[in-house]
């Protein structure tokens, strides 16, 4: 099954869209009608065919357009990609993880050939053919983390582990939900999570960190996070706030269906073998409200989740001011019928 890549933009005229197939495979994050923070981690094992969990790193129809958008962000602001000097080995670990996974999972799109430390990488969609020496930075046009994450959808951070804590000390962050790598770099787990409401009191971060410190190579885990974004803008960073902040005041009953997007992050956590660091890929999926409600179960459930979400969470996620408009729109798709457990669409 060949993959066709969309030609679309995440800025300006915002031509981003999901095909009907992309809508059906969208990682809808709610497996019930309400939501609260929890230590929601499960083994990142291959999921059913066609789902975003089928492979270690999902490649979808937005691949090429997302990579073009990343290059534009980096050209304007190189600090979106940073790696402290001691994190280079972790960058190599990440490069190996992504190259091996993609070559294994998408052999028609990617190839990796190894002869000792002489590696040959082929990325067909991006028309890249690169021979290099593994662990020798001088043989790549960028550092290893930057090199591979210019070719991989989603943001990536690398956490060093020491003193019973994780330290965010490298990353490629251009598709983030209102946080800044430049601000967070060097912080520990609780420190960079400080702005999150309620979760600290619930003990979520204490338990999550304790678990992550024991994460084993070869046993990655995944979790979801979600928020709301006006227009399909990947780069909702604090640095870019002047561009997207004001759009929150432009939502009306007439445009909420076409401008409001559910933004879902499929986050995975991988122990890296050579550096003992942890990689945290944050893969962002966007879906317009009017695309989402074509799946009846999701329309019903999103209405209930948004309606009943604690105000602290809606405020933190930045949509409290638009909540009433969103709920009114979604209510039209909620007939009050019970929803089935799990997040999968009901069979048609």
């Amino acid at each position, binding site marked *: 099954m060949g993959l066709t890549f969309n030609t679309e933009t995440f800025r300006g005229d915002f031509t981003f869209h999901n095909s009907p197939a992309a809508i059906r495979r969208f990682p809808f994050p709610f497996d019930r009608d309400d939501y609260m923070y929890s*230590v929601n*981690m*499960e*083994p990142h094992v291959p999921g059913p065919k066609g789902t975003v969990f089928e492979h270690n790193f999902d490649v979808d129809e937005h691949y090429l357009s997302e990579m073009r958008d990343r290059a534009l962000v980096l050209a304007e602001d190189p600090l979106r990609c940073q790696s402290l000097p*001691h*994190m280079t*080995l972790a960058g190599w*670990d990440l490069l*190996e993880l992504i190259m091996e996974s993609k070559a294994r999972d998408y052999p028609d799109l990617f190839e990796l050939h190894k002869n000792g430390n002489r590696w040959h990488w082929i990325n067909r969609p991006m028309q890249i053919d690169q021979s290099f020496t593994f*662990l020798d930075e001088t043989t790549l046009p960028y550092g290893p983390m930057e090199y591979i994450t210019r070719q991989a959808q989603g943001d990536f951070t690398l956490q*060093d*582990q*020491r*003193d019973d804590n994780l330290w965010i000390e490298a990353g490629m962050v251009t598709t983030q939900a209102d946080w800044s790598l430049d601000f967070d770099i060097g912080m520990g787990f609780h420190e960079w999570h400080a702005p999150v409401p309620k979760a600290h009191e619930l003990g979520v971060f204490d338990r999550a960190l*304790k*678990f992550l410190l*024991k*994460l*084993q*190579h*070869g*046993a990655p*885990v995944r979790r979801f996070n979600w928020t709301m974004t006006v227009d399909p803008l990947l780069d909702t960073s604090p640095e870019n706030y002047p561009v997207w902040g004001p759009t929150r005041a432009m939502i009306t009953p007439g445009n909420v269906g076409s401008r409001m997007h559910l933004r879902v992050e499929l986050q995975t956590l991988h122990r890296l*073998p*050579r*550096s*003992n660091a942890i990689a945290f890929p944050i893969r962002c999926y966007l879906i317009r409200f009017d695309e989402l409600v074509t799946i009846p179960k999701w329309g019903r459930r999103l209405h209930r989740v948004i309606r009943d979400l604690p105000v602290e969470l809606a405020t933190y996620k930045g949509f409290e001011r638009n909540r009433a408009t969103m709920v009114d729109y979604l209510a039209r798709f909620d007939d009050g019928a019970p929803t089935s457990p799990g997040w999968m669409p009901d069979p048609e």
Partner: protein
Amino acid sequence: MSVGAPKIPVTVAEVTEVNDLIKRFRFVRRDGGPMPPFSGGAHVVVEMDDHGTRRMNPYSLMGDPADSTGYCISVRRDEAGRGGSLYMHHHVRPGMQMVLGAPVNLFALDARAREHLLIAGGIGITPFIAQMAQLEALGGRFELHYAARNRALGAYMPALRAAYGDRVHTYFDDERQLIDLPALLAGQPLGTHLYVCGPKGMIGWVRASAEAAGWPRATVHHEEFLAPPVGVPFTVDLAASGKVITVGASQSLLEAIEAAGVEAPYLCRGGACGQCETAVLACDGHIQHNDHWLTDDQKASGTRIMPCVSRFEGRTLVLDR
């Protein structure tokens, strides 16, 4: 949430007698594929079927982490121990099939260190051999101070000397050579990290000296796996699984739980990592806390136990497992 990475089915490729006390074992994958990469300081748990008794002992990986063709460990024979090392010495032969756990690193190098000061005693050398290979490949600065009982027991000293020259310093107890720790600690450049692995007494001495010399806690690293001690048999009630088990004299509580078919988490099996921590629901008797994980207060409260190394004496012990 499971932390279990897939286990590695291996064949014993080589068994080498290093000296009177130590044998080295090299394992390769049964399917001929590459071993997973690892970081210097990592250990694996070796599963043994000791004539019907399942033993699972942790050993540091001592090979070059860049070598994915096989894993090497060194095992020191412990005559007084529960039998894991004796089994490795007496029964493991080339060609045998065994199972290894995935590597886990509880003794990682701090990648920010300007210099790594490594202090080894006896068999404690093994994690450092892997770490030095990795540091050498990445251009890291290090210095090894390695003490052994005598020249005959100074495993790998000549090879390390040959590889790393005057960065390797050796000391022999029977020649009354002692590491001049105060001078060594005083002479280090800012940004040095200190690592110690060896007998309990040495670890205590190095850590106390570093503290006295004002080294920040976060710059002093140690690895000390405890061997589960031999003891008196005792009975335990596993409330969650509804089983009553007896822990044999040379069996650990964790091994007895596993033998009863109850799944229990672990990583180090040596009282260091915290992974096996289990809630105590009732206790009429005395828990022998042998771990490095629980705080003194937690130990005194009697509400938690580390089944990989700790034992019990008394009437009833009920665990949430």
